[in-house]
């Protein structure tokens, strides 16, 4: 009989020691990058009412939310997305203000994803949200910070894929009145399924010139110099033209950041989180099959909370980032260790604690334990990556080096001073 108490639920993990330190260092790098651009940390609750997410225009698949029922009978969800609660905060708490709001967060995200596909049901996400700025400089800044986040973690071979939801969106609104059909077309474009899209469009009564345009969008991806001129040529209405101008502007600003070479375009990609209204983007790392970061502009989201604050933001999957970084960087630099283990006879216990406090006050890691079987204790110290042992036996202090670190002198000094 398998006892559940011995098992972890699917899609979650435990993390400790070196692995934790490795992840923590990466997370700290990410936070530092955000901080240096003037973003300020925000905390939103781990669980919220289902209604917060259900009533948003578009959004996360209801089935993928981890739900429970509150004692009052309300359906609650564990944070399935970070942006919506931050948008609510910006809209509610700053409703009478019009200055820029720049927030960052690091938070676990919960998704009840399909079983047995190796997906994480709890993962750490870090991200920024920039409110009250409708300009392309805001989009470009957010993307630039995404790029800087990867660079600051030593990731070099990556691309940021830019799209603009209004380009395809406005074309479809003009060409296809039926919403279900639009959804189907978007999903075929999303999977770059040209043949089936053609077949589907032929069954609909869509004007021929629209059909060709919609089909063209599937192939509008690649480097900016190739994609943007074609996209410009195909822009048949004002919103499409504006969308492509917007892409060009953001691209030019990113050029000034020095990040031109990281940018590619795909005007056929959309996002299942359809609160996005303008630029959207995803970050891809070479030889890593999943998008590591994604984001975009969402100008309407705050209106759900009664204020209009145009915004742009992105989130990076820290679990993925850790996976990517660990392929090129060893964990040695963050390996957990202890500088000194002080082993004492009971009558020297007080002295041992004094020494350990002095070591700790110098920033050295010191542990204490009663002296029992020294061979066994050395062996265990080795496994725990303890570098030196200080032995106090019969009032005599001596050091036993477990892993040579050249710091033995400290003890003599401390002993002299003490």
């Amino acid at each position, binding site marked *: 009989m398998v006892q559940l108490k011995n098992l972890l639920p699917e899609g979650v993990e435990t993390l400790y020691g070196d692995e934790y330190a490795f992840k923590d260092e990466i997370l700290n790098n990410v936070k530092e990058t955000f901080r240096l651009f003037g973003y300020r940390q925000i905390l939103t609750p781990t669980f919220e009412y289902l209604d917060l997410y259900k009533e948003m225009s578009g959004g996360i698949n209801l089935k993928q939310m981890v739900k429970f029922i509150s004692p009052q009978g309300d359906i609650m969800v564990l944070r399935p997305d970070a942006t919506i609660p931050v948008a609510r905060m910006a809209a509610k708490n700053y409703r009478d203000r019009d200055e820029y709001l720049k927030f960052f967060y690091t938070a676990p995200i919960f998704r009840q994803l399909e079983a047995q*596909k190796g997906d994480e049901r709890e993962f750490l996400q870090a991200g920024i949200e920039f409110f009250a700025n409708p300009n392309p400089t805001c989009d470009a800044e957010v993307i630039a910070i995404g790029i800087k986040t990867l660079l600051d973690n030593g990731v070099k071979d990556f691309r940021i894929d830019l799209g603009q939801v209004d380009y395809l969106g406005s074309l479809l609104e003009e060409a296809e009145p039926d919403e279900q059909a639009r959804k189907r077309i978007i999903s075929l474009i999303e*999977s*770059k399924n040209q043949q*089936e899209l053609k077949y589907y469009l032929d069954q609909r009564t869509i004007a021929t010139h629209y059909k060709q345009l919609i089909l063209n969008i599937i192939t509008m991806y690649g480097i900016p110099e190739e994609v943007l001129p074609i996209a410009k040529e195909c822009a048949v209405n004002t919103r499409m033209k504006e969308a492509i101008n917007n892409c060009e502007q953001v691209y030019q600003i990113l050029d000034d950041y020095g990040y031109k070479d990281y940018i590619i375009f*795909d005007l056929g990609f959309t996002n299942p989180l359809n609160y996005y209204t303008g630029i959207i983007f995803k970050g*891809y*790392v070479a030889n890593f*099959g999943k998008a590591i970061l994604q984001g975009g502009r969402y100008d309407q989201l705050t209106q759900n909370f009664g204020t209009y604050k145009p915004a742009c933001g992105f989130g990076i999957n820290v679990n993925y980032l850790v996976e990517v970084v660990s392929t090129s960087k060893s964990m040695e630099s963050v390996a957990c260790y202890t500088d000194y283990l002080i082993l004492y006879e009971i009558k020297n216990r007080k002295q041992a604690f004094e020494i350990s406090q002095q070591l700790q006050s110098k920033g050295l890691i010191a542990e204490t334990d009663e002296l029992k079987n020294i061979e066994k204790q050395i062996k265990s110290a080795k496994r725990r990556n303890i570098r030196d042992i200080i032995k106090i036996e019969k009032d005599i202090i001596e050091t036993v080096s477990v892993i040579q670190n050249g710091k033995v002198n400290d003890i003599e000094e401390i002993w002299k001073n003490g």
Partner: protein
Amino acid sequence: MDNVKIAIAKGRTADETIKLLTNAGIEFADYSKNSRKLIFKDTSNQVEMILVKSGDVAIYVEKGAADIGIVGKDILLEEDADVFEVLNLEFGKCRMCVCGRKDFELSYNRKLIVASKYPRIAKNYFDSKGIHCEVIKLNGSVELAPIIGLADVIVDIVESGKTLKENQLEILKEICDISTRLIVNKVSLKTKSRSIKPLISKLGDVTQKGVPA
């Protein structure tokens, strides 16, 4: 150039897939039908081929363990894979059908029992028709189910219809056409586009010309 990893399905369509790749100039010298090997390098050392069970091709590609996959549309529908589906390779053609005994009559009064290797496709189809059904997942010899009385109907792929006929079953409804597709990982298409784009267009050209059987 980047190395490209391609996952292909063992079994029914493997030979045709290899033929298609050969025609597109990608040759695997050490591949033979009876070999137990699962990983092959092509003669140019640019493409690596892995042989997996057909139902697993989609997940290999979705997760990025393989950049490209060649697999039947039936698997893509069933796995609901998040991949780019860039080409219809026009072989391995068959139809996804609802089949049952000749005298089968649909009744809305009770729930329909459906047996299938494709529970998702079956469920989606009957849901879309507003027919209340219960799907039993089977792994093979699905034709037995309506005969023995395990299920009212089955949902399965039909190629020639011979198996159906021999078991006194017939096609009641066609759900969709099935054929082999070229799928690409959503990241690989962008990060390895210099290798993958030419490969897609080569395979596209070969497909249009038709693969000699």
